[in-house]
């Protein structure tokens, strides 16, 4: 079981801040494909991966990173702090 979080416009496009996933995707990319297949609003949120960043268990990661045992994955646009 894994929590998937969305922030900023990713959250707005998906329509809610969090999903709980029961499947066990092996990599971030597999998780993205699972999400895309759900509904058009997910496809809209994940249509351009170059515009997205991902964190696994609150650490920045790559889309080809493995998810073995991850409890929380977050998707968001490039950060604009400061």
């Amino acid at each position, binding site marked *: 079981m894994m929590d998937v*979080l969305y922030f*900023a416009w990713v959250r707005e496009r998906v329509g809610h801040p969090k999903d709980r996933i029961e499947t066990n995707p092996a990599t971030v990319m597999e998780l993205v494909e699972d999400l895309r297949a759900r509904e058009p609003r997910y496809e809209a949120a994940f249509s351009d991966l170059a515009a997205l960043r991902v964190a696994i268990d*609150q650490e920045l990661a790559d889309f080809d990173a493995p998810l073995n045992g991850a409890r929380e994955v977050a998707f968001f*646009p490039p950060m*604009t*702090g*400061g």
Partner: protein
Amino acid sequence: MDIRVQDAAFDLGLETNAFAARQSGMGAVVTFTGIVRDLDKGALSAMEIEHYPGMTQKALEAIATEARERWNLGDVMVIHRYGRLHPDEMIMMVATSARHRADAFQAAEFLMDFLKSRAPFWKKEVTQEGAEWVAAKDVDEDALKRW
């Protein structure tokens, strides 16, 4: 190390004085403050700052720890706000102390460059016409390459 993520406003003078007073044997204190900048047309009604509560504190601490490894610093402080802010309000501040000013200046710049694009904050500009997410700038990403 003093890292704070908060919605409340902070008092720059008070924080700077308190930080400086905590130092011992340091010859330099550098501070930087980020302020909500109005749009050119004076149309910004608010800046909404979203963050990733579980990750923000850790990300800021990791950036500050790296600064302490790279430069000879006495101390580092970061305050970063979230929530709904208005033009001319202070968003964030960093402070560094060092025996010599070059370390304090460079570490403060390093902190700012990494805070911009590696700390999980997202800004949204609200105007009469609606609200728009602020896009990350290539120049901010490029700024990381110099370190």
